[in-house]
């Protein structure tokens, strides 16, 4: 099983990704989709990344998930560039014989992306303000639990 890992500026279609996972003979498919929210007058999110490192880092976590759980398929997509509220940022989907494996692998990858994937978000508001998003301690805690 080779994970399908993509780092791209282009939009993607969750339904297409899910349908592909459903055709792999799995008993369970878990997925997570992250979407830009328009809270507090947010007009856009700019995602900067470290191209030489990003694909290798995402490929590394996908390979680690495939090592920990017997997966039939794993898809990880992360967008960069300028996104607006309602746009999808990230898709993680895993297919496995049993539900526990698909769910655990999906949660592992999404927790990991928050803390170990070289992306930085800048929020741009309708009133002209702009700020870099700060890392959250809760995300570090979520990530650390997979180390045990």
């Amino acid at each position: 099983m080779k994970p399908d890992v993509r780092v791209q500026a282009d939009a993607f279609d969750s339904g297409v990704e899910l349908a592909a996972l459903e055709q792999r003979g799995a008993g369970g498919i878990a997925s997570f989709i992250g979407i830009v929210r328009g809270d507090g007058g947010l007009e856009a999110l700019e995602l900067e990344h470290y191209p030489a490192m990003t694909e290798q880092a995402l490929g590394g976590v996908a390979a680690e998930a495939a090592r920990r759980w017997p997966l039939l398929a794993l898809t990880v997509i992360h967008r960069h560039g300028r996104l607006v509220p309602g746009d999808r940022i990230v898709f993680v989907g895993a297919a496995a014989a049993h539900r526990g494996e698909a769910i655990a692998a999906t949660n592992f990858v999404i927790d990991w992306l928050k803390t170990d994937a070289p992306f930085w978000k800048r929020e741009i508001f309708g009133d002209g303000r702009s700020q870099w998003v700060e890392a959250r301690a809760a995300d570090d805690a979520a990530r650390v639990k997979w180390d045990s």
Partner: protein
Amino acid sequence: MALEILYFAWVREAIGSDAETVEPPDGVETIGDLIGWLAGRGEGYAEALGEPGRLRAAIDQVFASMETPLGEAREVAIFPPVTGG
């Protein structure tokens, strides 16, 4: 040794550049040493690099701590904690 340095997010903005090539002097042996030396290069550098506790780094595209020796590093990236996902 010539070292390619990359900056991201607000580190890049404060320094006003996304990359540069430097030749650190003897005695700059770890990531922490490198950041300390770069911080003395001017106002934007001091602002971006003055508090190493707020920074993260990678050597040749692999995360590294402040204590990691530069060794044979060719590319060092300095950036804030990541906020992807």
